[in-house]
């Protein structure tokens, strides 16, 4: 590592603990193992938790902008009760949601559908991000070509010399 380090690298960076790649390998290992160990939930979700998960995607019918999981309004309690019954009968969350949509209208579901016109709400940001990243990569490529036109260090040196000549001496000479 230190053999290939460029000359501008500070002294300490080339050797010892801070300069080597080893601490980063160990770090990646620590993070990987920790996340792997921390991923497993300690318990399988209880019925209450599953009810809450489904209810988090459902609007409380009588509130302005709360989910049925967050509100304690009677209508939200009723929705949670419906979800609980559905889960107890072995229905899937999707089945329960489509039942709720039939009962209260499509806008009871806070997660917009992924198909049709409504799917645009999911697709547009992703498409936008891809285009923006592409544009950024293109810009970097163009800048690189622009920069590689001359030796930047040489240009800098010339600029400093010119300016020094104009001022009649190095800046340190001034009072």
């Amino acid at each position, binding site marked *: 590592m230190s053999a290939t380090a460029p000359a501008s690298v500070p002294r300490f960076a080339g050797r010892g603990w801070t300069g080597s790649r080893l601490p980063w390998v160990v770090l990646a290992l620590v993070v990987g193992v920790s996340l792997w160990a*921390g991923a497993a939930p300690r318990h399988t979700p209880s019925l209450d938790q599953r009810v809450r998960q489904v209810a988090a995607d459902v609007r409380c019918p009588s509130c302005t902008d709360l989910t049925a999981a967050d509100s304690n309004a009677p209508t939200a309690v009723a929705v949670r009760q419906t979800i609980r019954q559905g889960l107890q009968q072995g229905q899937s969350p999707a089945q329960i949601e489509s039942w709720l949509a039939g009962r209260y209208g499509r806008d009871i579901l806070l997660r917009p559908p992924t198909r049709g016109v409504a799917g645009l709400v999911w697709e547009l940001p992703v498409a936008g991000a891809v285009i923006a990243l592409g544009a950024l990569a293109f810009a970097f490529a163009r800048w690189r070509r622009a920069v590689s036109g001359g030796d930047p260090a040489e240009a*800098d040196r010339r600029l400093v010399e010119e300016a020094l000549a104009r001022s009649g001496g190095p800046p340190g000479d001034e009072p």
Partner: protein
Amino acid sequence: MRSLLGHGAVLLGFVAALAGIASTAGGLARRRPSAVAAGRRYVWLVLAAGVLATAAMEWAMIGRDFSLAYVAANDSRSTPLLFRVTGMWSALQGSILLWALILAAYLAAMGRRFRRRGGDPVVGWAMVAGLAVAAFFFGLMLGPADPFRHVAGAVPTDGPGPNPLLQNNPLVAFHPPLLYLGYVGFTVPFAFAIGALVTGRVGESWLVETRRWTLLAWGCLSAGIVLGMWWSYQVLGWGGFWAWDPVENASLLPWLCATAYLHSAAVQQRRGMLRVWNLSLLMATFSLTILGTFLTRSGVVESVHSFSESTLGPLILSFFGLVVAAGVGLIAWRGDLLRSPGAVDSPGSREGAFLLNNLLFAAFAFVVLLGTVFPLLAQAINGQTLAVGRPYFDRMVLPIALCLLFLMAVAPALPWRKAAAPVVRARLLVPAWAGAATIAGCVLAGVRGVLALVAFGLAAFAGSSALRQLATRVRRSGPAGLLGRSGGGMVVHVGVVVLAAGFAASSAFGHRGELRLTPGQSAAFAGHSLTYLGTRDARYSNRTAVEGLVTVDGRGLPARPAVSQFAGVTEGIGTPAVVSGPREDVYLTLDAVPSTPGGPAVIGVVVQPLIMWMWVGGGVIALGTVLAAAPDRSQRRRRLAKSPADEIEVTTDLVSGDVEVSRGAERSPVGVPGP
């Protein structure tokens, strides 16, 4: 009398703004600096009009002058003094008045600050733009948003008072004014951007001159948003603080654009690049504050904040369209001048990181905007009614937020121009290990869930990266190292990290439930023991309440979650009680009062870890903004510079040994378009 005074003041403000525009623009057209400078005097008239109109409104609110329709709708004989004063901004017309007052104050401050450059065309055109915005808001009050309209028919003897949610907590005196100070404050950099574009002096000078104005607006908006979260947490009774409500989103949108701008402005100031982008961000920030006003005040979207509806919609939307058209048109017109000579050498440099930061903030803003207006779009396209809510925003925003945290950790360690990998590695090693140790420590302590662990790890990484930067600066130059853009900026980063950690912990590890308890009965919930002691009736000047008495962990005075009854409102309004602590909050609501005396009550409980740190983080952000506004050493050094040689700034990073040379040519001389 008050109505007459108010109407007169509003008319004065409108006419003075128009006269100021005419005088300044006339002077600019005829190239007469003295006439341009004279136009500035009209801002004092506009300010006087704003103050007079506000005084008339407050006089009417405090004096309960029910002959005014606004007072009759938002005041009552039982409303306490504080909420009569704050009642001015509890509904549409009064909020517009507050907006006009704050704008007038900003314009007057602007006129005073640039009084020695009154004849300067950039300042002149900025004044014209600012006064035009003022004329619009005063004009609204002349027509559809008249705060001083007389009631139709007989004068009532009492009114319903403000919306119960707006007379339940003293934060109503701080959150809306701070938020407005933020929104309206962006008018100043916006006006200067217009001035720069119209005159063609699109260099860096307007950007440098408005830096502190932008910081002030940004700081107020940040503090206003965090205070709003805190307020909604304490008042709304569901234990949360952010519901992705359209109005909340409307405040977040300009904040996101302004935050992106603060970062990319640093690139322009340093390297003279990104001119079009910076102008566009400022235009976006300002126009989004107008769009936010439209979304909140027109009633097109359903929101918990829609305290009133009106016919203002089309007018505000037209103004929004005008602002966007003017911004885009001017930028297109000046396209040639805006081309900048510099280049970003490498993605792995400070400016490369800022570009990525801007991309992420733009994506964030796009997602929030799209999610907010999509129900309207879908309805317009194929008549589909659908809701876009929390699950959508959480899913889309979370990855962006995590990327931003990562960038926050890495970017401060990257030097400008080009980074040598070993240098960056050396700078990042300790912060990265702080992040890794946090993850490992959390797992050992029993925390589960990949997303939350990643969030904590990245927060620790970003936080220690900022602290490392601050420590380096303080070692080098003492407490002064905390000042200026880099010092204050890193303090802001620490605040954001603290806020993010509190946010991640409270949203991932909260517990909520309901307990049905008879007086004297105790129950355990999420590691706390709650004892219900019974209820008591309480009377306040503006409400009566049934308060449940609950002790938490057997300590201290009992908490008193309540159901309040306000005069003129049939529905009971829940008033939660919060027992706050650095480890976690216990949040109590009285979900059902006992039906018989001594019967059981239903107590709603929400336990959320670390949520208090969100408010602390907000305070740190505000502090950091103040520090960032202070001049730092390098700026002072630059000001001392007299000879052109000093235009070349040689900075040596003592830690890494980096030598950076900023060339005068790239920081193009102030006020002159680049080559």
